[in-house]
């Protein structure tokens, strides 16, 4: 996959991921998967050698939302459910930024569902990480839209009577060009997945299973690191898609047959979470990004990004020539 990230990788090896760990403590509960995700993200950024000040890390509101406060890049803790609009606004005006958005499953698939869906349509070059813990952590464990029908984690007084959405299938259905899943405490896999997502040119979703020991006693660390018995044989709960020969990457994006086949394969795989849990890249396709398409429509963007186009001189006199703007009004 072609990436514009190479030129950004100026600081490979020049700092350690631990330098990205700030003084601010997000005060997550002991054993919370959020620690794992934040750590992996710091590692991914450091390993990619990105200049931290060119990374803009946006988060929603929730336990997960505090992640942006605890990483020493530009960190923007936005509003509940609105992380994607913020991230998109920044990326579209300054494409030079590496934009990473993250938030809870309530944040992203619940109140933010509309933006989640529409971000797929735009294919802006950025990464979106969802902390999938099946609950609303920060408000004390209500059902998130990822919680299965009938499930009753310890925080719920009564069983959940709503179905879960399938976020990966939704992502496929609305145009995400990179769709992956990982697990908060599989540090290596998560870090690598995040690196791939950041390197991907286009809108990338990484859904991360995240144990919430305080409220979710169904899908715990033990659950994910446990085994499944199938016809007498024991298998680890999670496995890597790549290990099974699965290849989610579209080799030739202009071949509709391949795109369609890889898409259907992803949709099928997205539903295989009942027993064993596949991790990895479900789908990836290289399509023109929104930023690129914008240039076709707006000539000045071919030379400057929006934030760079000049509009005043040293004396702060505005330099924009209004002739063409006013042409049709002059009498």
């Amino acid at each position: 996959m072609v990436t514009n990230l190479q030129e950004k990788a100026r600081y490979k090896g020049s700092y350690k991921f631990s330098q990205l760990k700030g003084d601010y403590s997000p005060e997550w509960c002991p054993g919370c998967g959020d620690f794992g995700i934040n750590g992996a993200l710091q590692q991914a950024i450091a390993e990619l050698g990105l200049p931290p000040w060119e990374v803009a890390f946006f988060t929603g509101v929730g336990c997960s939302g505090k992640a942006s406060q605890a990483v020493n890049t530009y960190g923007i803790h936005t509003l509940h459910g609105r992380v994607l609009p913020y991230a998109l606004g920044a990326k579209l005006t300054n494409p030079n930024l590496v934009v990473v958005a993250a938030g809870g499953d309530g944040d992203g698939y619940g109140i933010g569902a509309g933006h989640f869906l529409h971000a797929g349509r735009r294919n802006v070059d950025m990464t979106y990480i969802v902390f999938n813990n099946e609950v609303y952590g920060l408000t004390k464990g209500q059902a998130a839209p990822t919680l299965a029908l009938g499930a009753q984690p310890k925080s719920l007084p009564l069983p959940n009577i709503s179905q879960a959405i399938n976020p990966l299938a939704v992502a496929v259905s609305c145009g995400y060009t990179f769709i992956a899943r990982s697990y908060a405490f599989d540090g290596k896999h998560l870090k690598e997945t995040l690196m791939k997502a950041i390197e991907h040119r286009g809108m990338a979703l990484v859904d991360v299973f995240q144990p919430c020991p305080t409220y979710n006693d169904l899908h715990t660390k033990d659950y994910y690191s446990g085994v499944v018995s199938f016809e007498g044989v024991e298998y680890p709960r999670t496995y890597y898609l790549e290990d099974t020969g699965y290849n989610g990457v579209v080799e030739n994006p202009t071949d509709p047959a391949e795109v369609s086949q890889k898409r259907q394969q992803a949709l099928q795989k997205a539903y295989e979470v009942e027993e064993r849990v596949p991790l990895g890249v479900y789908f990836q396709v290289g399509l023109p990004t929104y930023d690129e398409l914008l240039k076709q429509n707006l000539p000045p963007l071919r030379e400057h990004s929006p934030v760079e186009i000049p509009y005043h001189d040293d004396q702060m006199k505005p330099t924009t020539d209004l002739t063409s703007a006013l042409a049709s009004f002059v009498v």
Partner: protein
Amino acid sequence: MSRKTDVCWMIGGPQGSGVDSSATLYARTMAVAGYWVYGKREYHSNIKGKHSYFQIRVNTEPVHSFIDPIHLLATFEKTTAQIHAHELVPGGALLYDPNTVDPDALEMESSVKRFPIPYDDLIKNMADQTGQNMVKLAITKNTISVAAAALQGVPFEAVETAILELFSGRRAKAIPINVLAARQAYECVSRLDGFEDYGFKLVEVSNKPEKGSRLLMNGAAACGVGKLKAGCRFQTYYSITPAVDECIYLEEHPEYGIVVYQAEDELAAINMTNGAVLTGARSSTATSGPGFSLMAEGIGWAGINEVPTVVFNYQRGGPSTGLPTRNEQGDLLFALHTGHGDFPKIVIAPGDMHECFEDAFYSFNYAERYQTPVIVLVDKALANSTQSIAQFDEASLRVDRGELCGPSPDFNPDDVKTGMQLYERFKITESGISPRPLLGEPGRVHWLTGDEHDPLGHITEKPEIRLQMMEKRMKKLDLASQEIPVDRQYNFYGPSQADVTIVAWGSTKGAVIDALKVLEKEHGMKVNFLQIRMMSPFPSEAVLDILRQAKTVLSIESNYSGQLAQLIRLRTGFDIQHQVLKWTGRPISETEVVAAVKEVAEKASRKVVLTCGH
């Protein structure tokens, strides 16, 4: 018969039938002929079929509003004639299609002159002459209606020039047929009975403005132009009447490189704007009532994070979906208080095209200088009305980006640590303003959060920090109040001593300005006018000063509850005793202002409710 200096033309017809283009052409024709025009547009929330109309006032002097009586009504179907004929002044003219309209069946002044236009014959003629299809030619009915200019004594050259100017580029191929249509109609009208003694021909303009010295445009475009001048590079919107007009205008100018982003909803629109502003790109969003109601939370985030976001709210008839295509000034108090909790907002309301341009330009300055959201309240009447105006004054404009700290001077690209240095984005300062870094600047790493925060932008719930941060943010409004030039806060028109002082805002300004003259000349009344432009921070002292000195104070607003009068009471304690209100969704005319002022002066009415207009 003596010629007139001020006449009003109207055209009506089903939506989608070209009424707008007809009016555009007519207005330009008059402007080309050297007149000053003001055009009001009324339409339904509907795509095709419902009645719409356009009213254009033509004057030998600059004019800023419309009047209620009409002198010339151009129709090409029955409904318009039925609805509007009664608005014709005695001796006015009705242009109609004799195939569909029976003038005897209309309720109108008996002295109205009747000018049957044989539309079908004219079109058939054209079809014969050009070999073109009659159905396709039907659209030229609109051009035909314009030819009524003949009745007003305007030379055909003006019509022709206007057609040439309007049908440019891709549309140029339609020129010949339209010129032909116009010419036929012009000649046809000139031959009709009553042509000669029609009493509302126009005086020729003596000091004809130089060609190219004026603009003929509406408020939505004026705002758009102001944004371009200000260097706005990112505009989000979610389609909504009437805000969408500004967005379409901007979309039609890709040459300026402004990204006009059609978001999935207004929540995305406002929050994307907030995100974009962080990079340093001047950014704004435009919406109307229902969309604005969805932006409250996002505006609050900009408030607590001191983000210079600019929001244009094009007011229309509310509440709820209300009257989507009609005028109202009903969002003032909502805009002032939008969003839970206390945070500083700058709220301004332009009152004419020049102020639209200026306020659009300055809104970005205010936003960046005071690092807080700016809400610009336009109203539908201002957005959709066409006016001939002097060219914008661009020379005096200066960009003010406020305090930007820029990248760290200590940054050394070879030393990653210098780039990773932290920065106190929300440093407590005397003025309340903290120098602002932009995302991506080395050595300025900091955080933002909708939670209360410390100078670095880290969440805090410490009472002592909270205490300071609230004060720091709120006092920026005091600074704005001191620094922003007085004439951008309010304007005062007319004699310093007067019998009646009018207070008004937004689009109503035009009608009041024009009415002042009439009241003086025709009714011998001394009336002055205080126009409020800045709603927050409110120029309380100045306003109170003026109102205390006034004899009779009267407010005029296009809303039910007198929102500006309420604001004045809230900020000054002054209780305006006479309110003139209109909430039918139709804008206020010069005629209505004159009558209302007289009524208040004569009867001391506490409340005058205006209802004119269809």
